[in-house]
């Protein structure tokens, strides 16, 4: 990514090298590999429970934001 940010013209070989590994390709696609690896360290059931936690937390945030917007 930093190669593109530098603005310098890169050869196709250098571009291929910078996104050559599987992990680099995933980061380049915008996937947070640290989050994914954390998820893969859990059992399927733990992943499902984590989804429920995240879902309910998102709902509570949404509700709080609605209340905030209603006041302002």
């Amino acid at each position: 990514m930093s190669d593109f940010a530098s603005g310098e013209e890169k050869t196709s070989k250098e571009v291929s090298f910078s996104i050559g590994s599987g992990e680099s390709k995933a980061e380049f696609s915008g996937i947070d590999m640290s989050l994914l690896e954390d998820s893969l360290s859990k059992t399927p059931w733990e992943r499902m429970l984590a989804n429920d936690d995240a879902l309910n937390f998102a709902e509570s945030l949404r509700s709080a934001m609605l209340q905030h917007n209603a006041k302002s």
Partner: protein
Amino acid sequence: MQNLSELLRRLILAEVEFVLVGGFAAVSHGVTLVTRDVDICCRFSEANLMRIQEAFKDLHPVHRLRPDLPLQLTPEQCVTLKNLYVKTDLGIVDCLGEILGVGGFEKVLKDSIEVTLPFGKCRILAIDALIRAKEAMNRDHDIITVKHLKVIKAQIKS
């Protein structure tokens, strides 16, 4: 408060014949995108649909597209249904007779894996079939889910 995990547990304890598909299946494989409902592909027999109804009977289940209608299936309705969309106190369960990109229940069952959960065994659509299903849907969030699944597949192989 939603509790998709509890909805899944009830389906298993009620011995419903189903395969977990959709976003919650993707979560079980490791995808970190949050999903808001449980999608299952199930056998659309009267007995199986009645088991689903029994699993959720104390959760005030209604037809999701007609929330004024409580879930009270009749044998006649069971014959005609191809999909069943249920809203409960703990969240939404969409019951599908077939999955685009994969096929009907028997095919989905063949393309599923068995996972042991704390309260019993659960059949979940295998990652390759889930990728096919999501690619067939081709909505924006399905495309993102496919990216995640492909990375997970590569991680598992390595």
